[in-house]
């Protein structure tokens, strides 16, 4: 069924289809339900709160509506404004007929009209008149009989009647989790599931992921939706969140810097709802979002009285309408969130909230469904959403602790500003990680060259060798190592939470598996793998620390047959390799990891944007000797300015060191180095900047001081020079003025060389 050419009219969607990001796959999946040949019975969409599932359904509606001659889309949202199941059912029938006839008449204006059933009958095309009339008459008769169940079934069965008469529809039902609030003898959710299962036309049933299936099941164990697919709708990925924020900012005229855009995407956890809310708030108040400070000011305003405040506040109010117990709820929520482990027994909650059992159960269901707290069998756990936690902290301080508003605002602003670079650093570290988890999951008894896991052999054979030599050498290796088969892979922290103190979750993984096809105790093995940060080959001291850490995790978890594997970007010193061998541990460099990944069929990462300028400007990707391209460019500029040859060499060298510095010291998200060359009468000013968070010089890496990582090389008069960390010193010696500056999300180095000095 070809879509209508050149028309992208909006019917229900709130966003133009070209601006709807990150849900392409789900949109296609829903649209694919339309053709007759698709035998799928439907989909259950389990949505995270604030994930924009409603807009996904509305976009799906529009997409289907634009396709002439195909199945007619119907969008129905269960609403808490319906007082009872009968009114919800009646509204369903009315909506069903309105949307179906609107599509079949190609009359989008009808979708937003509110015709009566009799008026709809008048509008029905001849081909549909008979079944529409039959439905209207049956409905009027059922209303007269006063049998609630029959009425509900009749209304929800409309798609089946239409399908039987050749009018195929795709019924999109939103907010199904709200069905359990409808009053009546029948379970609207369960009736809806039954209708969907027997309609003979596809249904999409969407609702909050923690509640939808329960509501659709009603009193039964499961909703009986055999043949339905299940799709999860979570937050958007980083890239999609950034696109959404940039697009919204551009369309609403809000100035948004790239750094702040990334903070928006990260802090709002990819929630389309929250991103929309913040950008709309910026538009409405005329605020710009050029810096972290701009954004956090607006964010704090929103937490205290804007859209974020209203969103979370309305759920709390719904959970506990009365003021005094609501204060109790805020207190216990805050105490749970700030308690060690974030868990409190259910009985303690019930006592603190002081609500009747039925009221308490309703409140907990609501908090659990909206993921403001997690209800387990015996305890309540705090949920980690950043915006929610910030709202909770602010509300507690204002309404329970009754602190002065100015103090709460100031503290929150300062705290969010301090945390922003840390949070982004964490994100960049995650993005820059090797991907140990992914790689370990691919372990499936493959045999790989042993040198890939024994760095001493790898260094001896391949360090400094050309790719062709490496490839030929690998093929010729006779000693092969058999990998285990991965059964389960998770982070160290998920087994042993204290390991979070020394390692990011992405950089430390535990594989449970077997090292032989026979699944027996004797073949069970646990691999503990960790990425070690070191600019040079990791030394013995660093390796010792890491082997000790992993062994402690193994002991604490009671792992018996254990294999330790360390990965260090530049590999390991000879002494460190000896230690690895003594302990029967494996060690690999990043290069070896990449070779291993390509052997196991794993893949790599993407790339982003560009910049203009009046002065000379260029951006280069980090790595792959690209600094030499920058050096050649600056050489041409310096020649044009008639610098002396010696000065030109110094400028080139300084630029090369600045590029190396930018690559090595930033956890850059875009992996680009931005350079500007400003020519003035008597000087050349070069600015080198990069995004990402600067690792403070001299800061310990993974808890190990730099001195230990320098493998014994010290710096000082009469002693051996240290091996790395000269970048800035060199640049200062080569250029006349050097300024190093940390900006919101990265660093900027300004270097000046005077023409006659």
């Amino acid at each position, binding site marked *: 069924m070809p879509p209508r050419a050149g028309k992208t009219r909006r019917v229900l969607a709130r966003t133009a289809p070209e601006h709807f990001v990150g849900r392409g796959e789900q949109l296609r999946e829903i649209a694919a339900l339309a053709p007759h040949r698709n035998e799928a019975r439907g989909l259950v969409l389990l949505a995270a709160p604030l994930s924009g599932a409603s807009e996904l359904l509305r976009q799906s509606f529009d997409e289907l509506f634009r396709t002439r001659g195909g199945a007619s889309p119907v969008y129905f949202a269960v609403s808490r404004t319906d007082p009872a199941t009968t009114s919800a059912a009646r509204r369903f029938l009315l909506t069903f007929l309105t949307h179906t006839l609107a599509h079949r008449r190609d009359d989008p204006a009808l979708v937003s009209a509110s015709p009566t059933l009799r008026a709809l009958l008048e509008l029905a095309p001849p081909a549909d008149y008979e079944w529409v009339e039959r439905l209207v008459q049956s409905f009027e008769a059922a209303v007269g009989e006063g049998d609630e169940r029959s009425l509900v079934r009749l209304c929800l069965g409309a798609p089946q009647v239409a399908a039987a008469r050749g009018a195929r529809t795709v019924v999109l039902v939103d907010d199904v989790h709200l069905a359990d609030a409808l009053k009546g003898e029948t379970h609207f959710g369960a009736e809806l599931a039954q209708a969907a299962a027997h309609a003979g036309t596809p249904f999409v049933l969407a609702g909050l992921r923690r509640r939808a299936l329960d509501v659709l099941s009603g009193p039964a164990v499961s909703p009986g939706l055999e043949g339905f697919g299940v799709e999860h709708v979570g937050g958007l990925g980083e890239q999609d969140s950034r696109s959404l924020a940039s697009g919204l900012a551009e369309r609403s005229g809000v100035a948004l810097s790239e750094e702040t855009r990334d903070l928006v995407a990260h802090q709002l956890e990819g929630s389309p709802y929250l991103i929309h809310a913040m950008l709309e708030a910026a538009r409405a108040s005329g605020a710009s979002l050029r810096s972290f400070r701009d954004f956090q000011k607006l964010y704090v305003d929103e937490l205290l009285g804007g859209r974020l405040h209203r969103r979370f506040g309305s759920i709390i109010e719904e959970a506990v309408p009365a003021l005094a117990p609501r204060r109790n709820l805020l207190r216990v929520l805050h105490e749970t969130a700030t308690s060690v482990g974030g868990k409190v027994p259910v009985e303690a909650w019930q006592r603190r909230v002081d609500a009747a059992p039925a009221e308490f159960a309703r409140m907990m269901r609501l908090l659990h469904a909206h993921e403001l707290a997690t209800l387990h069998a015996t305890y309540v756990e705090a949920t980690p959403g950043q915006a929610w936690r910030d709202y909770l902290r602010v509300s507690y301080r204002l309404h329970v602790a009754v602190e002065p508003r100015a103090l709460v605002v100031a503290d929150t602003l300062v705290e969010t500003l301090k945390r922003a670079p840390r949070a982004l650093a964490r994100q960049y570290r995650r993005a820059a990680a090797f991907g140990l988890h992914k790689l370990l999951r691919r372990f499936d008894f493959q045999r790989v060259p042993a040198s890939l896991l024994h760095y001493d052999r790898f260094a001896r054979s391949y*360090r400094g060798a050309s790719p062709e030599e490496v490839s030929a050498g690998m093929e010729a290796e006779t000693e092969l190592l058999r990998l285990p088969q991965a059964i389960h892979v998770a982070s160290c922290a998920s087994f042993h939470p204290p390991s979070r103190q020394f390692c990011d979750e992405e950089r430390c993984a535990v594989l449970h598996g077997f090292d032989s096809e026979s699944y027996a105790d004797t073949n069970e093995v646990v691999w503990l793998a960790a990425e070690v940060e070191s600019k040079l080959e990791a030394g013995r001291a660093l390796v010792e620390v890491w082997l000790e850490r992993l062994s402690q995790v193994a002991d604490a978890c009671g792992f018996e047959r254990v294999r330790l594997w360390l990965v260090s970007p530049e590999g390991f010193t000879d002494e460190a390799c000896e230690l690895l061998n003594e302990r029967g541990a494996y060690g690999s460099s990043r290069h070896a990891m990449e070779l291993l990944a390509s052997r196991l069929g794993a893949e790599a990462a993407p790339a982003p944007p560009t910049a203009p300028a009046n002065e000379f400007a260029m951006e280069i990707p980090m790595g792959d000797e690209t600094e030499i391209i920058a050096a050649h460019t600056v050489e041409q500029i310096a020649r044009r300015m008639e610098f002396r040859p010696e000065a030109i060499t110094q400028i080139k060298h300084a630029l090369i060191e600045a590029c190396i510095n930018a690559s090595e010291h930033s956890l850059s998200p875009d992996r680009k180095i931005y350079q500007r060359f400003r020519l003035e009468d008597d000087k050349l000013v070069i600015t080198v900047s990069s995004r990402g968070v600067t690792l403070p010089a001299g800061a310990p890496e993974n808890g190990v001081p730099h001195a230990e990582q320098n493998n014994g090389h010290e710096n000082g008069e009469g002693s051996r020079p240290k091996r790395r960390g000269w970048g800035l010193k060199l640049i200062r010696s080569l250029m006349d003025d050097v300024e190093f500056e940390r900006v919101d999300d990265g660093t900027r180095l300004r270097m000046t060389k005077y023409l006659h000095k």
Partner: protein
Amino acid sequence: MEPELPGPPAPSEGAAGVAIIYAGDYVNKLNGQRIERECRLRLEGGCRALVINFRGTELVNSIGVSLLLGVIDMAESREARVVFTNLSRHTVKLFELLGLTRLVAMAESDEAALATLEEFTPLLPGH
């Protein structure tokens, strides 16, 4: 023993027990590792002295310097000597600044380097 002109780093047969290694035009991580590899192979093959020729080397970046320091360490642990030759003025200044000149001998040319090494004949097998 006049070297062929600068190009990618390549080893050369020198006097017995001496290897001449050409640094190439830009000593960065990649070239530095190649130099390191050549030096290691030569030392494992029995060389007792390494001459690293910087003819045509325009720049040595800080990663290259760190790898050269690794070569110096490696040679020292095997009691071998290292001489740098044909250094540009800029590179000499760089090595001075970073303290490498305290650790290696420097010579104008490979011949001068070999002459320097001759003074340490007992170290060189075959002499």
